[in-house]
């Protein structure tokens, strides 16, 4: 859009940074958490942290949907692939470590693992290659779940089923809000997840936890204004839910997408790599769609799985407890070319985003 340029106006950035400085009480640390890999990219890429006062820290929460897929689910996909099923997934997932190997390793050993850009690609493949069995490894937050729901609701060919690993974000934010030692003072809520779910699911954060919560877009100015809005609420001691990303997010969200999600999926407790089991945080196909549920179709059992590689501190990175640079392996044993943990694999993993910033 033509307005885009104004969304990056350096003069405007300077004025808002000044206002942020003026508003911040000296000394007391203020920790604001975002939960989106794209926000981390914007913050790192544009060096926004350097514009903030020393005592204002913006940390990255579990905003990378690929990073939090537990090893047990990767293992299940690898097992299917090793038995001749075609596994289709988004490219980000390929190198995420399972307990013993990644899907990429399985591919190197001859398994048919295919990268797709969209779930509709898999639907097409399953049509074109009717003699093969396909499983779509469906990963992603509320932004991605509706596209899976569209295709499941259309009941695709019988040779396609879904290994559903979709997770929903607000329960993970609630987990963070409850971690007292994290000492969060506010949230920047994920913009694209919010285009689907709207604002309502975030109401608990200001009301129950007293945390200012601002839904923000992805331009550098969006993020700076969101930081300002959180600080402003803190200074007035009036925690509220505000929407900075009005150009794409409204109160109700995308009602049609929500309806499809609830038609097709139920919500279950789900394990998040590095975070443990979070109540009501995972989507699973409803019994009516059992024929398309890879878990049921292939009677998959999810063993414990080894989520953490030796020395990797992803479990601390995903909750913003440490910065990637505080991990001894960062840019030594662990690089984007040779990732150790899931956070270095995905384009949205915090370690990967930081690695990219140090490499340019």
């Amino acid at each position, binding site marked *: 859009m033509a307005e885009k340029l104004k969304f990056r106006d350096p003069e405007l950035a300077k*004025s808002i940074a000044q206002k942020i400085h003026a508003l911040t009480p000296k000394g007391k640390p203020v920790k604001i958490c975002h939960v989106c890999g794209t926000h981390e990219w914007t913050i790192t890429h544009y060096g926004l942290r350097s514009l903030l006062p020393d005592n204002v820290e913006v940390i990255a929460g579990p*905003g990378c949907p690929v990073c939090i897929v537990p090893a047990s689910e990767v293992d299940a996909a690898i097992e299917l692939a090793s038995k001749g099923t075609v596994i289709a997934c988004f490219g980000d997932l390929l190198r995420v470590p399972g307990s013993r190997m990644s899907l990429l390793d399985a591919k190197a050993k001859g398994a048919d693992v295919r990268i797709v850009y969209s779930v509709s690609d898999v639907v097409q493949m399953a049509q074109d290659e009717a003699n093969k069995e396909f499983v779509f490894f469906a990963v992603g937050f509320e*932004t991605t779940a*509706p596209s899976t729901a569209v295709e499941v609701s259309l009941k695709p060919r019988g040779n396609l089923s879904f290994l559903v690993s979709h997770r929903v974000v607000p329960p993970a934010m609630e987990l963070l809000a409850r971690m007292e030692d994290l000492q969060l003072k506010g949230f920047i809520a994920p913009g694209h997840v919010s285009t689907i779910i709207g604002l309502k699911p975030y109401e608990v954060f200001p009301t129950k936890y007293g945390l200012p919560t601002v839904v923000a877009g992805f331009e550098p100015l969006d993020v700076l204004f969101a930081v300002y*809005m959180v600080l402003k609420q803190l200074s007035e001691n009036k925690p509220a839910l505000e929407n900075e990303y009005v150009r794409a997010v409204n109160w109700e969200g995308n009602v*049609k*997408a929500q309806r499809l999600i609830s038609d097709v999926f139920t919500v279950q407790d789900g394990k998040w790599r590095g975070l443990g089991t979070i109540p009501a945080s995972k989507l699973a196909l409803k019994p009516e769609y059992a024929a398309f549920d890879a878990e049921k179709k292939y009677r998959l059992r999810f063993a414990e799985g080894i989520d953490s590689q030796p020395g990797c501190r992803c479990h601390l990175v995903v909750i913003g407890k440490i910065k990637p640079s505080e991990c001894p392996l960062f840019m030594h044993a662990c690089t984007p070319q040779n990732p150790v943990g899931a956070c270095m694999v995905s384009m949205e993993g915090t370690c990967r985003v930081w690695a990219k910033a140090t490499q340019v």
Partner: protein
Amino acid sequence: MCLAIPARVMRVDGDKAQVDFGEGVLREVNVTLVNAKVGDYVLVHAGYAIQLMDEKDALETLSLWNEILAAEEE
């Protein structure tokens, strides 16, 4: 992975649409999730339009920013 990119709808054909991401090249996306018309801007994620973005709302963002900046001047 939650990245969504704005594109302009150039043609709609049932649940599919041809959109332009600003490169002048038309690409096909699925529009089941939105009621998109020709000329609308949509946010596209993994081949699906997930929300409409209208220009009025984009301008609203700018006016929100200006308001914040102005309010503090007083």
